[in-house]
């Protein structure tokens, strides 16, 4: 099953089981979704529950908030991460805060799905990542899906949860193949050990997990070591417990992320490690992230702006040699 098919299956199942679930966004209905995640749903559930919206992101999220107040379970799709900036008032001032401001009187069972990241030459206004901003907002759950099985289970969880969830997808993952274990009871807030190892803990999420996995054989060969790869899965809350167990075993931490390095999401993980795991670490943590530049169009420049399997290998090997791994 493809990643997008797993998301589609999850949506289909929850819409079939619960009449209050609706999905809304640009081209989610008759067009089938710009990444085909909502394909076939309008034929099954009709235009009232699979709602094609105008190009008005503020309203897509703002209306979803009102639908949730009114007793529905909306799943809003933002066509691409950058467009969500038009909805940030609704996401931060409304979706994240109404519960707290009303002291729990308002409950918002809603999801905003969020394809993002560097795809292929879409340039600066269609390529950015915003998990660092969204995970810094109290009141939002932020899930980041990289694994096909996880995509299915986490999206089902998100829709059925009574909390507002930002569900981040990466645009290059939609055609990733994987198996879904439909009977699994999966905790979406628990980190996934993508590969076990004993000498370096490499933490990542979304597509960078796959890039790290491509880099690992070469890193292990060059350094003569074994890497543990952790897929965070949830960016808020963070499964620090799993990170702690891994770092206690390896004594080394590498963080790999696609967003810009300054103020990027991984800064939180490394800062946590510095505060909580300082005496366990045998080497300074390494952080590999996107450059502090807007994403360029040219393919060579684009690839130079973010970590790639090659740069991840090179940078971890250099760091490892310097630090006696």
């Amino acid at each position, binding site marked *: 099953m493809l990643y997008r098919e797993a998301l589609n299956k999850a949506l289909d199942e929850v819409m079939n089981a619960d009449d209050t679930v*609706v999905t809304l966004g640009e081209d989610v209905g008759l067009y089938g979704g710009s990444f085909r995640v909502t394909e076939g749903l309008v034929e099954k559930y009709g235009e*009232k*529950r699979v*709602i094609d*919206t*105008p190009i*008005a992101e*503020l*309203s897509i*999220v*703002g*209306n*979803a*908030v*009102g*639908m*949730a*107040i*009114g*007793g*529905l379970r*909306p799943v809003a799709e933002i066509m691409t991460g950058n467009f969500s900036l038009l909805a940030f*008032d*609704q996401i931060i*001032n*409304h979706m994240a805060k*109404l*519960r*707290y*401001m*009303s*002291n*729990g*009187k*308002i*409950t918002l*069972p809603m999801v905003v799905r969020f394809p993002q990241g560097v795809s292929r030459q879409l340039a600066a206004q269609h390529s950015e990542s915003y998990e660092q901003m969204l995970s810094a907002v*109290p*009141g939002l*759950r932020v899930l980041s899906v990289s694994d096909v099985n996880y995509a299915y289970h986490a999206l089902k969880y998100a829709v059925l*949860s*009574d*909390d507002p969830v930002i569900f981040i997808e990466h645009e290059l993952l939609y055609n990733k193949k994987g198996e879904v274990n439909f009977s699994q009871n999966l*905790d979406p*807030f*628990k980190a996934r050990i993508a590969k076990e190892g004993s000498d370096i803990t490499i933490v990542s999420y979304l597509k960078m997990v796959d890039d790290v996995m491509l880099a690992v054989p070469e890193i292990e060969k060059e350094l003569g070591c074994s890497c543990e790869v952790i897929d965070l899965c*949830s960016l*808020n*809350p*963070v*499964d*620090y*417990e*799993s990170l702690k167990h891994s770092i206690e075993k390896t004594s080394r931490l590498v963080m790999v992320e696609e967003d810009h390095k300054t103020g990027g999401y991984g800064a939180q993980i490394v800062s946590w490690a510095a505060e909580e795991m300082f005496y366990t670490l045998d080497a300074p943590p390494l952080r590999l992230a996107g450059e502090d530049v807007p994403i360029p169009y040219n393919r060579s420049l684009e690839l130079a702006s973010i970590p790639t399997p090659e740069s991840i290998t090179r940078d971890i090997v250099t760091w490892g040699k310097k630090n006696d791994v």
Partner: protein
Amino acid sequence: MNKLEAEDIYYLMVLGRAFEYAAKENYMKGNISGFLHLDIGQEGFSVAAIKAFEKGDIFSTYREHIMAMARDIETKAIMAELFGKQTGVSGGKGGSMHLFEPSRFFYGGDAIVGGHIPNAVGCAYARALQGNEDGVMVIFGDGATNGGAFFESLNIAATHKLPLLFLCENNEYAIGTNIKRAAPFREQAKKAEPYMLTYTVDGMDAKAVYETVRKAQIQIQEGHGPVFVEAFTCRYEGHSVSDSNAYRSPQEMNHCKVKDPLEKFKKELQEKWLCSEREIKSIEAKAQKAVDEAVEYAENSPEPELDALFENVFYEERKNVVS
């Protein structure tokens, strides 16, 4: 509207004005802090609009104390919220600008100008899907009609023929900027005309506001889609207590205050419903007593426990560490 309803509206108007003056006094004493937006001068609009919209969901702004009272939310719980107390409508976490009571279908309290309008659109969508005919009313000021959220909402509400009443309170001032300097015309209903039925009404005349909102809700219930009502009002005080109102001349203020909504509605009570001076005095005394009791209740209420800081961030409380 019958005599009992008219007396109730007058009671709420007097209650509202007394409440706002008591809030101002307690702000000066330091019992209330933050932003405090008073509705003095606009009580007739606030009470009549809420009373006329008998059932259905109401979304409003940060100037919502009187509207909350008109929706039968306890006066003392509103005052306690202004005091930041545990017994407040929002447990002391929202304050003056954030009064919510879903059990009364009242989602007051949005402090992002225009930000609640898309929420009302979404709620109206939900109500239509559920087959609920009461509809939704969203109240906002003239300032909100210049923002994108407003225009997006007109478009979506009209496209889906949603059961939504747009109610614009035009007091001509966005904080200190006159509408003439922010929009090309004074009547903001013109912006809605291509999309839906529109009405304008004298917002200082509670009876006229009541009748117009009632008519609009009936049209919505009959399936005509969204309706826009604009009421022209006068805000006697500054935008908030911390605004000295220096941008309006004494002449302008005098002109604005000529049609006091309480005086006007009192005449209605006397002339149409033959209320005696004694009956009116009794209503006024009852309102003042309720406000005095609300202040006393707020003063004597406990502060929130410090544990409340971390409560109700999420429905499903989880620590930031999963074991």
